[in-house]
């Protein structure tokens, strides 16, 4: 498991990719609710996909060749359901540092960004090609470039999409947004003072 978590500007991620195919993989599957009984995220890495990994057949997260992978390739509506940040926290603590999907559920996307984990979109063709490439033997090393929103491996390159705002936040290191939000103290007061429901509807 990788214990150094994202910090500062994030410009690229290099490493092996693990493939989880299928649409609508929800956050209950990523981290079942019983593991949410905790006051710290520390232990979640070992519990990622806990129930799926007990099902028949070796789960991609258990396969020997996927150990040490840090990029996750998935399909549509990944991370739907519960808003639990425990889901990206568990993925991150297992070692994932970037996710490429055909689409993401919104809350999950925001939770990843808040942890400095880029979520990039691939069209269906690209998603399938990437999954095929990732499953080659030996496993190729992918290089994901945030600035160009491209991923390359074995001399090939694929274009991805990364929303402009997210891209800048990752490149500037401002994805950890608390400092920006509290800096706008006066503007916060001004907004609050103009809201009727905070001012007795005057």
């Amino acid at each position, binding site marked *: 498991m990788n214990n150094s978590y994202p910090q500062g500007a994030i410009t690229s991620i290099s490493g092996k990719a693990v493939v989880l195919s*299928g649409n609508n993989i929800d956050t209950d599957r990523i981290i079942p609710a019983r593991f949410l*009984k905790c006051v710290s995220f520390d232990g979640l890495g070992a519990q990622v996909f806990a129930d799926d990994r007990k099902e028949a057949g070796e789960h991609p997260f258990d396969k020997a060749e996927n150990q040490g992978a840090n990029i996750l390739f998935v399909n549509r509506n990944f991370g739907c359901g519960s808003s639990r940040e425990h889901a990206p926290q568990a993925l991150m603590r297992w070692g994932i540092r970037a996710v490429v999907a055909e689409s993401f559920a919104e*809350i999950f996307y925001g939770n990843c960004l808040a942890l400095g984990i880029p979520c990039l979109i691939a069209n269906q063709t690209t998603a399938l090609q990437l999954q095929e490439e990732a499953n080659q033997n030996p496993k190729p090393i992918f290089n994901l470039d945030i600035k160009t929103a491209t991923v390359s491996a074995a001399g090939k390159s694929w274009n991805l999409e990364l929303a402009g705002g997210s891209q800048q936040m990752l490149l500037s290191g401002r994805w950890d947004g608390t400092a920006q939000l509290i800096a706008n103290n006066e503007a916060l007061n001004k907004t609050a003072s103009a809201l009727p429901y905070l001012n007795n509807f005057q």
Partner: protein
Amino acid sequence: MSAGTLYDKVWQLHQVAELADGATQLFIGLHLIHEVTSPQAFAGLKELNLQVRHPERTVATVDHIVPTSSQARPFTDPLAEEMLATLERNCSENGITLHGLGSGRQGIVHVIAPELGLTQPGMTVACGDSHTSTHGAFGAIAFGIGTSQVRDVLASQSLAMAKLKVRRIWVDGSLQAGVYAKDLVLHIIRLLGVQKGVGYAHEFAGPAIDALSMEERMTICNMAIEGGARCGYVNPDATTFTYLKNREYAPSGEAWGRAVAWWSQLASGSDALFDDEVVVDASNIAPTVTWGISPGQGVGVDEMIPTLEQIAEEERPLAEEAYRYMDLQAGAAIAGTPVDVCFIGSCTNGRLSDLRAAAAVAKGGQVAAGIKAFVVPGSEQVARAAEQEGLDQLFRAAGFEWREPGCSMCLAMNPDRLEGRQISASSSNRNFKGRQGSASGRTLLMSPAMVAAAAIKGCVTDVRTLLNK
């Protein structure tokens, strides 16, 4: 687009600043917290050496981990006890009001905030729970957030957000007897799928929505997220104002009239622009039941479980996974499917009108042999009101257990859970694999009245056949 919609108006009122990377800093009018997604947020705040900016705009309760059979402290589960103790300490250290067990105001966060009058039209509401969309029933812009964002709201009473598009879901006609708001929203998700709402706020409007009570509107907005929409809302109207009048935290005295005037002009105007529109007819909807592992996999109770050929090609892998997991037969009738556990409750359907609808079906009947059936009121207020009407006695006489308020078996973070391959008829919101606490447990989502019918008959049953007796 979206000019003239309630979403657009509320968004503009809460804009604090445009941030360097293109996101908008949005002021959060009401922040709700609970024991599961807040401890790490408070820890993060401490790490950054920050204070809670507006403790008076954050309200806490305890719901996810509380046992529903005995709420005596300390809890039997030391982890649950630690989570509650942590919430109590964080609230007391930061001057945040906690509606705790036995306060008379405790309950599922999305049940108590409306019933206390905390949720009001025109607010932005955030909570570390995806079903925060519930509060949109009041014409608020309400959405679920993660724990890092809970920390941000505590620190700044604001969030960095991207503006959503707005889709109007116009519902014509009216629901038939025995068909409820739950059926309507399951039907909408069945039609649109679970991904269509991504990137959108869903405005629910039209004659069928206008006719709904506030509790029914909450059921609809609650499950907006199940259709992919982080936020769903209904424009405020006389139904909204009547509900709010005289609630504990609602405006009173002279402020009431000013509030109603302000709330009234927030509704989407006749010239409002929508990014997309969908029309649904409520008149022909049957009681709806899910058969699969995604809330979009629903059918009318009078229909067959769809065969692979009847399912769009891109949905087939999920359908095949669902047939296998649920062990249900494609092409077979959903009615008659035997169930083991019947659960009435949750932030979707744990309010007084839900319990009344279930009680009307259970009255005079008896839970079928071998079935565990239980009713979990959404809040202490709901429980006391139901007890005053004798609903607890009615349910007990029919063989249902009557429990204390909490999230219970909706997500099974407490002692209420399925065992092994058990199959539940559940008035909750998610039928995901493993959702109800057993890795192989199975969930059939339906209305509370349909759950009561399943409990009495021992299998999925069209509630209309019981109501028409």
